């Protein structure tokens, strides 16, 4: 079997070798006959060739004629054949040499090296088959030729198989154009990164645990104001930190090494030119296969931002202090005001009482001695001191409301106003109509004061009409209650409406209607404290309406 295979292979190879002579074969049948007879002779004589005998006598030439003598070669035909084969051989020889050079110069992985070597061997073997074809013109080493071709066939097949396996991978390789585009993209990204680093003043660093060497990006050097590229050790990096912060960063590094913990800290460094600078230092351990290999992180100049932050913090602290100071000043002023009004209420009232009292005493004790005019003067003294007493009382009440803290709760207006009317305006209660009133939220004492004042005004200013009619009513919208106290009294000219709520502002003379001009000012103050609104509408001679707008929930 083995023998047969070799025989067939040899015949095939021989035929291939003899191929160029086929054309001549047609021309000269005699030499063909010679060759064929030679072949036949050889075949007959070594019918017992074995594999071992084949290889032991590989270079034998005795069974075949040299190619020059096989067929009728002209000089031109033969030398063209020889020269071409020689050229092919030389080029096939040079290719593996170049590949060898390539493999040695270029770093390739082992697998790729093997493929290139295999390819080189395939080319080289092909080259040798052509060399042997040249040799065969003089020395018919057909056995060697057969062997080399066999070898070439095997290596070619192997190369083909490997190529078949490698092609799908090779397809994934980028073409030079694609590589160029990728490189452009990469360089663009690099530029962007650079720009970003410049704008954000953010650099990166890495420390190799084994060598204890740190590598800094340019920005990190720049932040430290250190010449770029200088060799840095971990300790050097730490020593750039402010003495107060050195311990913090040392501990962070130690923890990162011992516990695999990262850090993100805002600390001060002292640059090479002795400037204090706030930086954000971020670090992360890099663990490969459970083993700490590197520390890696970012380093950012946050000096301006941090200083602004600190300034803002200080400003806000100062502001708080200022508010506190002002509040305590206000509290003090309030206390002073309180003691002032305390004095007023005592010290101003006492002499008034004396004036009033002694005028009255004079009137009682010496009535007989006084003429009409003197009596009248005395009456005026009494009336004025009484009026002044009222003014002081109202003023005190007004200032008391300023200082009073509100105490909000639910108030049933219906019962509150009914009670007020009954207690304070018993004489006028028949002319006061109270419609259905809601329950609202407010300070009861304050609102009682408001309705007392409004009702008192309504009663006073409608006292001169034949049939006084006063109505307390309520309306509501989505968010507010609108409460109204209306009368049919003298009313007022709307052009003075804005003066109504000023302290001591009056629209009527005392001789018409008595008053101090404090009541409505007080009402407005109270309604303001409830974040509500108060306003009035009137027509001279037809009465007035006072409206309160209060939030449904306070």
């Amino acid at each position, binding site marked *: 079997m083995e023998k047969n295979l070799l025989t067939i292979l040899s015949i095939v190879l021989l035929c291939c070798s003899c191929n160029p002579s086929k054309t001549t074969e047609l021309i000269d049948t005699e030499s063909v006959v010679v060759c064929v007879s030679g072949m036949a002779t050889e075949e007959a004589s070594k019918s017992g060739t074995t594999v071992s005998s084949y290889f032991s006598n590989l270079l034998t030439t005795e069974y075949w004629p040299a190619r020059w003598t096989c067929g009728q070669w002209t000089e031109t035909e033969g030398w063209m054949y020889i020269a071409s084969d020689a050229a092919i051989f030389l080029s096939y020889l040079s290719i593996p040499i170049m590949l060898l050079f390539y493999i040695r110069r270029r770093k390739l992985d082992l697998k790729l090296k093997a493929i290139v070597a295999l390819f080189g061997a395939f080319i080289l073997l092909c080259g040798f088959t052509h060399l042997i074809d040249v040799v065969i013109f003089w020395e018919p080493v057909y056995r060697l030729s057969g062997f080399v071709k066999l070898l070439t066939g095997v290596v070619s097949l192997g190369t083909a198989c490997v190529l078949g396996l490698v092609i799908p991978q090779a397809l994934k390789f980028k073409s030079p154009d694609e590589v160029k585009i990728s490189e452009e993209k990469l360089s663009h990204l690099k530029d962007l990164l650079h720009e970003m680093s410049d704008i954000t003043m953010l650099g990166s660093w890495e420390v190799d645990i084994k060598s204890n060497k740190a590598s800094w990006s340019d920005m990190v050097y720049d932040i430290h104001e250190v010449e770029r590229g200088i060799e840095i050790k971990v300790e050097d990096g730490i020593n750039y930190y402010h003495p107060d912060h050195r311990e913090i960063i040392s501990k962070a590094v130690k923890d990162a090494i011992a516990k695999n913990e990262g850090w993100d800290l805002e600390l001060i460094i002292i640059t090479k030119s002795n400037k204090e600078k706030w930086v954000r230092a971020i670090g992360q351990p890099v663990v490969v296969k459970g083993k700490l290999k590197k520390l890696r992180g970012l380093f950012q100049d946050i000096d301006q931002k941090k200083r602004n932050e600190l300034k803002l913090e200080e400003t806000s602290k100062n502001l708080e202090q200022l508010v506190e100071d002002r509040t305590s000043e206000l509290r003090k002023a309030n206390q002073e005001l309180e003691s002032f009004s305390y004095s007023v209420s005592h010290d101003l*009232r006492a002499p008034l009482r004396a004036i009033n009292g002694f005028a009255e*005493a004079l009137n009682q004790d010496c009535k007989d001695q006084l003429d009409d005019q003197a009596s009248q003067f005395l009456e005026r003294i009494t009336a004025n001191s009484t009026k002044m007493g009222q003014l002081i009382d109202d003023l005190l009440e007004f200032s008391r409301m300023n200082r009073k803290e509100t105490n909000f709760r639910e108030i049933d207006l219906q019962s509150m106003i009914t009670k007020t009317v009954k207690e304070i305006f018993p004489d006028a209660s028949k002319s006061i109509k109270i419609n259905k009133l809601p329950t609202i939220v407010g300070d009861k004492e304050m609102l009682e004061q408001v309705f007392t004042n409004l009702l008192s005004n309504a009663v006073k200013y409608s006292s001169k009409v034949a049939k006084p009619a006063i109505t307390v009513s309520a309306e509501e919208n989505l968010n507010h209650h609108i409460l109204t106290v209306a009368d049919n009294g003298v009313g007022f000219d709307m052009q003075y409406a804005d003066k109504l709520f000023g302290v001591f502002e009056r629209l009527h003379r005392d001789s018409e209607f008595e008053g101090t001009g404090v009541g409505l000012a007080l009402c407005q103050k109270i309604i303001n404290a409830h974040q509500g609104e108060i306003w009035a509408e009137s027509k001279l001679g037809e009465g007035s309406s006072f409206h309160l707008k209060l939030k449904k929930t306070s």
Partner: protein
Amino acid sequence: MNITSEVQIVLIEDSDDDAALTMRAIKSSNLVNDIVWLKDGEEAINYLKSENEAGEAKPKLILLDLKLPKINGIEVLERIKQDEDLKKMPVVVMTSSKESKDLDRCYSLGVNSYVVKPIDFSRFMDVTKKVSLYWVLINQIPKD
């Protein structure tokens, strides 16, 4: 008509005018005559102490103004109400102000009554008369 010669009312008041008007009001009723007028807190405390030690009968009413020189009315009230011998004496504060601060303080110290003096004289007369008559004639105080 003089009911008794014992001191019935002690008036503690620094203002001559107020004192004169108050006494005029009290006396106008013709029921009470024996009024002792003391012009400041210190004098008042000393008087009450010495009277008590001398074994004199206790006054039926102390009318106390709040604004006084040296020791103010509130402090006088405090001393009276904290003194074992004096604390049963009825003290009525008669003052110009109705400051809630004063009201609270006086009541927490145990004042027996708190009256605001009206400016209008006829009302003042009326109030003063009523107060003195009530405490001197109607109210009972423990003997001893």
